[in-house]
């Protein structure tokens, strides 16, 4: 069941269209990745869904509430960890989180327990009474993410949750996001880190210049690139021409390139399903295989496929 639906959701700032007639449906209980380079319109979309800014055109339903007609009710279902930590610099993490939890309606005992848990899990317990202005960017970001982990809203929106955070911290936050989903929250994850979206998201929407390019599961998006999978084979001896021709006839094989006489590069779809057929072919042809390397396209490739640009090029534009 869809918990968020957008209908031609549009936001203009003067002449600039930040989000352009966006139509999306987000299912309850999924981790939904919103991908795109900086300036793609991800954050603007999220700010509209949290009712922080008003759409110029179109609308969205958060749960059963229209964000333009019942924003107060819609807002009660949503919690957001912002891209830039939103903290008063004179405050301490303990006060920031305790007040946030209080506003979100947690009881006194529940509040203390969750704040302590989040601060401990995110490695901030020792520094809980220090002003956030003494914190590094990564520490501030962790305080921001902790808000959502404490709140446990029905719809949790996390905007670039792991920027400026070290690799151990990233894994910890990813696990906590998964746990939040398992406890019943729907997660919207906005990121320009394609690897993060790939490993966390059940479905991914790619945005570029305010528009939705494509939306599906990471697997289906990768499979949508014809010949996107790759198998590299190194043989003990030269491959005969007729063997290469037979290889090309296998369904889902798109192209075969002989880099060296005994080194073949095969472009195909669904490599994991076709690999047994390929090995069988070489066994029958009495051509022993020395090594096999298999790779599938990344979401970077998917982005490049749909925009004709790498994410870095898109950001420069």
């Amino acid at each position, binding site marked *: 069941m869809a918990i968020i639906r957008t209908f031609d959701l549009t936001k203009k700032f003067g002449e600039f269209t930040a989000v352009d007639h966006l139509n999306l449906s987000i299912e309850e209980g999924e981790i939904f990745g919103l991908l795109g380079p900086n300036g793609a319109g991800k954050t603007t979309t999220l700010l509209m869904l949290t009712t922080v800014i008003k759409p110029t055109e179109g609308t969205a339903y958060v749960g059963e509430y229209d964000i333009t007609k019942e924003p107060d009710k819609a*807002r009660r279902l949503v919690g957001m960890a912002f891209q*830039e930590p939103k903290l008063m610099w004179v*405050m301490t993490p303990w006060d920031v989180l305790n007040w946030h939890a209080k*506003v979100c309606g947690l009881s006194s005992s529940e509040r203390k327990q969750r704040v302590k848990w989040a601060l401990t899990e995110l490695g901030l317990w020792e520094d809980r009474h220090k002003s956030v202005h003494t914190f590094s960017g990564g520490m501030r970001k962790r305080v921001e993410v902790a808000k959502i982990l404490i709140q446990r809203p029905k719809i949790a929106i996390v905007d670039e949750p792991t920027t400026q955070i070290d690799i151990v911290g990233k894994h910890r936050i990813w696990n906590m996001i998964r746990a939040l989903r398992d406890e019943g929250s729907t997660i919207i994850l906005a990121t320009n880190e394609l690897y993060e979206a790939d490993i966390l998201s059940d479905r991914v929407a790619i945005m570029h210049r305010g528009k939705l390019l494509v939306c599906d599961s990471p697997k289906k998006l990768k499979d949508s690139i014809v010949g996107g999978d790759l198998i590299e084979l190194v043989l003990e001896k030269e491959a005969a021409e007729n063997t290469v021709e037979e290889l090309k006839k296998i369904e889902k094989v798109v192209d075969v390139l002989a880099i060296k006489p005994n080194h073949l590069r095969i472009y195909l779809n669904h490599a994991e399903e076709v690999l047994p057929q390929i090995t069988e072919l070489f066994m029958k042809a009495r051509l022993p295989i020395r090594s096999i390397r298999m790779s599938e396209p990344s979401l970077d490739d998917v982005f490049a496929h749909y925009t004709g640009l790498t994410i870095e090029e898109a950001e420069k534009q």
Partner: protein
Amino acid sequence: MKLGGIAHLLEYDLRNFFRYKWWIAGMISMNLADLIVMAVVYTNMISPTVAGKYLSYFLFFSPGITITALFAAAFMIGREINREFRRSLSHYLLSLPFSRRELAFGRVLSGGVRGMVYMAPLLATTTFVTWFFTEKLPSPLEMLLVVFALFLVSIGTSGLSITIALSTKSFEKFVTARGVIYYVLFFCSSVFYPLDFIRQLGRDGTLPQPLVFIAEINPLSSGADITRSFLLGYPSFSPLMLLNVALFAAIFVLTATFAYLKIVQE
């Protein structure tokens, strides 16, 4: 509007206010210097024919200091809201489960309460000093009226400050506007000199009439004079003074609420 939401906002702003320890220390030093140095020196400088009705300039000036302190403390909320606005920290507050009206009114009220909290020890000191020299104390009802009038000045100041804070994202412009307002409202008022005397200077042609008019409608004049009425017995209380501060509060509470609703939420 829910009281719970407003109470959370009051807690947020009051906690933040007391975190600015150095600002508070600076304000207390300034107010003490006003009372102990400036008021004492001026008492000996100023002709008794001018300050006589108030017994001494010292007793005249101490309610003035109270109201300037109230004004400065209540005005401070604007500085924070301007910073929130510039750094998009306002997005966080807008994403929380408050209704927009709760959020806007809660912030205006917070500024007013901060002014009252900072001013309370000064009002107590002024009341004590006046009692010490005159052996007169206002009745509880009169004191309640003084506190109510000062609260109206405080919440109006908070609204004025928020309105200015939201009309620009530039901190420099905000600080300049704040300076202009401070100087106009402090010096064209009865904070430092009696309104009768300002009017006299106006009639003599020594002071331009527009400045006399500003001093007459200035809510700081009304706030200071209501306090003097019940603490010193002069000038006599007029309901117009209360009406003036009530109008000031109503206008700027509404403007600030409107500005918050229309400007902060893009």
